[in-house]
């Protein structure tokens, strides 16, 4: 089998394994925890027969193994259950909201990478200078920010005090055509910026240290000895090799990015999956919470797969490893 196909197959299998793991962990957590799903929707005053009927309706009277199999088949068919409060299939509720979360997280990731690479290069090429110190301290501070804190701060300054940007929602309801796209973009700025500020530090700091290492390698010394301009050594030679650990970081940070999106959407009333988690917490709507986790896990796994494949296309070492 060609190495490329094997690499792809291996990554797809890994994604499937991760998804199975997420589903299994969820199933057992749901069954083991004291929050009995039937009790959660039942009145304390209801009779024993009614409770038994309820348990039977939800399939909770059968053995754990049967329940697990049922659960897997239901999920494979895309059935995430019915929301306790909205009496609507969870999948429908969440699918309507998923595009907003993908837009928010995707744009935040793109901006983070677009800013992180030049900043990391700047810090590495000016290592130990005042500029480098400044970028490092900024990176550590950024990593330490609590997402809602920075979200509220931006909202207060740019939304409330200066009145430059909308303070919530994803778009104006009455906008159409080009105005609608403009409205979506304007509403995206603050939530996206909150996520970028929190994420940027890890990327800059990782790229900085790997790039400093790469610049000390023999091939960079050779390139300089040949008389190659420093700019070309950095961007063409060192950076390409230094980007590998940074790409691995994307995979590690995706889960964190999604967590940040949940908090950001809660602050800005942004109508994504995270906002429905926020609402479901207040209403103790467990099916929505469970469905939201599984959907976000699925999104992260697919995004991880795409990153891996993209990188495998760019770097032959990854394919054969």
């Amino acid at each position, binding site marked *: 089998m060609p190495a490329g196909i094997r690499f792809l197959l291996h990554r797809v299998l890994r994604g499937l394994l991760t998804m199975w793991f997420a589903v299994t962990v969820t199933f057992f957590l749901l069954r083991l925890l004291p929050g009995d799903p039937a009790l959660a929707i039942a009145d304390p005053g209801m009779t024993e027969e009614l409770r038994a009927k309820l348990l039977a309706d939800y399939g909770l009277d059968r053995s754990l193994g049967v329940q697990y199999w049922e659960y897997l088949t239901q999920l494979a068919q895309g059935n995430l259950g019915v929301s306790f409060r909205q009496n609507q299939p969870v999948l429908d509720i969440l699918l309507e909201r998923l595009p907003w979360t993908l837009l928010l997280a995707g744009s935040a990731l793109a901006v983070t990478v677009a800013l992180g690479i030049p900043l990391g290069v700047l810090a590495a090429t000016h290592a130990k200078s005042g500029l480098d110190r400044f970028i490092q301290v900024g990176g550590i501070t950024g990593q330490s920010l609590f997402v809602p*804190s920075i979200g509220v701060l931006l909202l207060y300054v740019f939304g409330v005090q200066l009145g430059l940007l909308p303070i919530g929602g994803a778009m104006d309801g009455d906008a159409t055509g080009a105005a609608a796209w403009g409205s979506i973009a304007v509403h995206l700025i603050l939530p996206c910026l909150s996520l970028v500020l929190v994420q940027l530090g890890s990327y800059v700091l990782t790229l900085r240290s790997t790039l400093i290492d790469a610049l000390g390698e023999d091939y960079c010394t050779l390139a300089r000895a040949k008389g190659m301009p420093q700019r070309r050594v950095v961007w063409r030679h060192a950076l390409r090799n230094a980007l590998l650990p940074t790409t691995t970081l994307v995979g590690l940070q995706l889960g964190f990015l999604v967590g940040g999106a949940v908090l950001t959407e809660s602050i800005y009333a942004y109508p994504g999956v995270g906002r429905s988690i926020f609402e479901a*917490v207040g209403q103790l709507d467990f099916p929505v919470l469970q469905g939201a986790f599984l959907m976000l896990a699925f999104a992260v796994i697919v995004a991880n797969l795409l990153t891996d494949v993209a990188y495998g296309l760019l770097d032959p070492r990854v394919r054969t490893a």
Partner: protein
Amino acid sequence: MTISRTSAAGSTPTAGTTAAALPPSESVAQQTWQAFRRNPLGLASAAVLILLILVAAGAGLIADYPSGYGEDVLAGPSAAHWFGTDDLGRDVFAQVVWGTRVSIVVGLAASVLAIVIGVLVGVAAAYFRYADALLGVIVDLSLSLPVLPLMILVAALAGPSVSTLVVVIALFSWPEVARVVRSQGLAVVPMPYVSAARVIGGSHLWIIRKHVLPGVAPVIAVSVVLTTSRAVLSEAGLSFLGLGDPNSWSWGAILHQAQRSGSLATAWWTTLFPSLAILLLVVATTLLAVAYNDARNPRTR
């Protein structure tokens, strides 16, 4: 008979002569402390953390427990209320002080629990090669999932309380510790002194306790600090979403109250001060970990 690293090294003749030629050698811990003492950023971070722990311990001496209703509703910072008051007239300074206690207790407890599980799994994976495949996959898989939504689900099911927060955060924080401990353990286990201990017939438990654990101890020290700050952030996130203990104040809970009452957008002091407290703690722990790493590493020392 006990064979430790020093006696094993001392039994070779060369080690004795080099030791005699060098000035009285300090222990690694002393050298690390000497280097750490010269790093102002590290010392300042340690001071900040000690201060926060003192505030947490002596919350009752600093401010009255914030409860009931006050007369000044949503008043800005003043001499009477340093950090202003919230929508029910409660003193925000008192909330932040008492919040320090819950935030730090949850952070430390969750971190200790996560470290214990993480070290056990990490050392087991590094030492018992046959266990590594399974444990490694479990750690890898858990690390690639979005943890916050999972914590939210579990915390909501278990019902909000301080102990729920501790267990939930620990339950989903140990894989990170296990990953770091495992990779350091993989460097320690093939060392000649570990093989030597095996040859003289040491039991697995004894070898792990005497040789593997000391080898990974520095990584654990850094992990304690970083896991605590991450646990504080997780606690703040869960409490902010309304999954905190309803009977106690924490930094995240103050933000939750501000969000729920709608004072978030108008009264900046209700969110700024708890936010600063979180930032202070997390920055201090991060800088402390960096300073410790630098002090421990002979190259940066």
